[in-house]
């Protein structure tokens, strides 16, 4: 009855690593007759997209040798203030991303039926943080900002009409004009062709005569991980258009969704479970210490001591290395990220979007580059994604702020702290209970690895928006593995007993 041992099986495919790419591949292979062994050298699912309890986060930080990852426990000592809960009450996403409702991922999760094991929630409002220009750095040199404020970014006629006094009547008309244009930008190429490779801000200023404060609103909607001066018109238009066109597709008011319980980590786990249900064997905590290619098979020496043979190996550069940390990198290459647990539910950030809209589980705050008076040569924007306790990532009356900036250490982490503090200063200044800083290394496309070995990038790009080309890469490798060029990718029937519409059947 016991399944045959790992070593005696002729595996068709060994997948190393349970990051999003490999997990989606496992899902894609789950109805094939391939013999699949799926390994991860880590003791958790998700690799660079993992979600961690506080304790797991601490262990992960310790493993990141010679990097600038760190954790501060800032829980205040007062008796009756907000307190950090127990470690497992948290599920913190290492690589949080927004998934636009128009993303191909949504489509694939539905057609593959994987969505039945997932819960998705709506992102809510987008806010632009604007600093008051006259604030001075305090004595310690860190920028002090008492008087910044948040402006809700309008994305439709109602938003514009009901927006507060930050947009005057004449500007409201211009904002509407720009919104209408962007919804239809691909049919009006003649208007923006000349600005293609020029800054988007320049196009808005010159063509629509938008004042700088309103230009910032539209730049924020690009959710660009780079500086506004590098945000070209050709880059910005499709991104804002995607945002606007995504509104209402899965319900009123919202344009993007997030998986509950820790983001993409949850998608990884569901993909791997689908793989297991399809017969794949799962083994966490087992890496590959050596690979040998002989003829058309590859022999893998696992850190568990097993030696397995396979026709194909699918991995990424990190899952193939025996080192447990991220690839050693030039730290100037990485962007900086932080995760802050805040002792307040920050209700002001999560207003109901529109009538009939789901309760928003997240919000976005964009802080444009150059918000700090003391910023010098190389200003960088900060993107903040705030998740409420609805996401299941933290207990009630707390929330999580995921912060990201293209600036690398040492400037990056202090910029993130300043941005989080400035945001909290706008909303009653609740305490930060816990904070983790880590460098985020955007994954690069690996070069071809040779016969029988297929490589994915080791994680996500710096973009905080889910990139649909991930699915294209998964599909390419899936087709190579199954050798079928016509089969539909990630389209499955429900397994027996799994469809929910049997709700009222009597058994």
């Amino acid at each position, binding site marked *: *009855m016991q399944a045959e041992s790992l070593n005696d099986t002729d595996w068709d495919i060994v997948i190393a690593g349970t990051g999003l790419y490999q997990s989606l591949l496992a899902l894609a292979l789950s109805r094939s007759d391939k013999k699949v062994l799926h390994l991860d050298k880590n003791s958790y699912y998700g690799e660079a997209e993992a979600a961690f309890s506080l304790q797991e986060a601490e262990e992960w930080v310790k493993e990141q040798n010679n990097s600038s990852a760190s954790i501060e426990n800032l829980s205040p000592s007062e008796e009756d203030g907000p307190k950090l809960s127990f470690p497992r009450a948290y599920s913190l996403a290492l690589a949080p991303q927004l998934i636009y409702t128009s993303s191909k991922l*949504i489509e694939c999760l539905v057609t593959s039926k994987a*969505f039945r094991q997932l819960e998705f*929630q709506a992102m809510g409002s987008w806010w632009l943080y604007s600093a008051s220009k006259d604030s001075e750095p305090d004595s310690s040199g860190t920028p002090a900002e008492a008087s910044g404020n948040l402006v809700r970014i309008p994305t439709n006629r109602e938003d514009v009409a009901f927006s507060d006094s930050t947009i005057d009547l004449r500007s409201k008309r211009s904002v509407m004009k720009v919104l209408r244009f962007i919804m239809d930008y691909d049919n009006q190429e003649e208007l923006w062709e000349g600005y293609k490779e020029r800054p988007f801000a320049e196009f808005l200023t010159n063509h629509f005569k938008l004042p700088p404060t309103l230009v910032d609103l539209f730049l924020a909607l690009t959710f660009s991980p780079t500086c506004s001066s590098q945000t070209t018109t050709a880059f910005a238009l499709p991104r804002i258009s995607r945002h606007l066109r995504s509104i209402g597709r899965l319900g009123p008011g919202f344009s993007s969704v997030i998986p509950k319980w820790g983001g993409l980590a949850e998608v990884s786990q569901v993909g791997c*479970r689908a793989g297991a249900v399809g017969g794949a064997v*799962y083994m966490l905590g087992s890496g590959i210490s050596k690979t040998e290619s002989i003829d058309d098979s590859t022999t893998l020496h696992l850190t568990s001591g097993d030696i397995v043979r396979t026709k194909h190996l699918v991995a990424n550069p990190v899952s193939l290395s025996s080192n447990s940390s991220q690839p050693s990198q030039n730290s100037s290459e990485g962007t900086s990220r932080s995760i802050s647990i805040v002792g307040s539910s920050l209700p002001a950030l999560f207003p109901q979007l529109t009538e009939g809209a789901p309760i928003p589980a997240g919000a976005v705050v964009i802080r444009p580059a150059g918000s700090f008076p003391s910023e010098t040569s190389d200003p960088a924007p900060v993107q903040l994604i705030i998740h409420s306790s609805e996401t299941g990532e933290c207990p009630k009356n707390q929330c999580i702020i995921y912060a990201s900036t293209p600036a690398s250490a040492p400037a990056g982490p202090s910029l993130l702290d300043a941005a989080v503090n400035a945001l909290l200063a706008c909303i009653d200044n609740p305490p930060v209970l816990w904070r983790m800083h880590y460098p985020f290394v955007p994954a690069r496309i690996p070069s071809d690895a040779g016969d029988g070995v297929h490589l994915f990038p080791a994680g996500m790009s710096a973009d905080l928006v889910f990139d649909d080309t991930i699915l294209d890469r998964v599909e390419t490798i899936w087709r190579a593995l199954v050798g079928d060029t016509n089969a539909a990718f990630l389209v499955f029937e429900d397994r027996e007993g799994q469809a929910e519409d049997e709700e009222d059947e009597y*058994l």
Partner: protein
Amino acid sequence: MADASQGSAPKPSSSVKLVLLGEAAVGKSSLVMRFVNNDFQENKEPTIGAAFLTQKCPLPTRTIKFEIWDTAGQERFASLAPMYYRNASAALVVYDITKPSSLTKAQHWVAELQRQASPGIVIALVGNKLDLATPSTSPEGADEAAEDENDDDEADARKVPTKTAKAYADEDGLLFFETSAKTGENVAEVFTAIANAIPETQLKGTRGSAAARAQEESRVNLSAGRDTMGAKEGCAC
């Protein structure tokens, strides 16, 4: 044996996620097959393709709809994901009464549940393969099994005394049963006992429950307009 009672006025119905745990080959899937389909397969292959089964369990005042999650083999190398334990209201931790090491493993799974699962989870410890034991050592309701005793092994194959496992279960506050997926003995009883042990307040999906509705309000239906799922969400009355 656990057929839903039909007719009469509809009782409130709630969905309960139940997870299976236990060493490979102790009969986790067989117990569920017996409960859900009243079926048993000798020498069953390790579980493939059966991820999720549902079965209703009628109680006097309500109906519990079990969503039963199988490990899909991910327990073999301790590779169950957090999503497996998430929102589980009940767990069936199974061992084989002819294999003492499987009880040790079961204790490990109970500890894992206490670490990973929701604090209020109802855990039942189940010693399976009761058909392999001679009835004398099993004081509770083993008479029927004795009548079926046509196994080729004359000797009692039981290696885990009932009282050892029972003492452990009592100590940890677990429900305890010995079952035979093969004969069906005690199988329905396990699920009924679990259904009864789940506190009313824990039930999600209870029609009209405010907590359940609040939970749904942040949920986005991915397949909106794609299939009939939408109708299901809409009729939660």
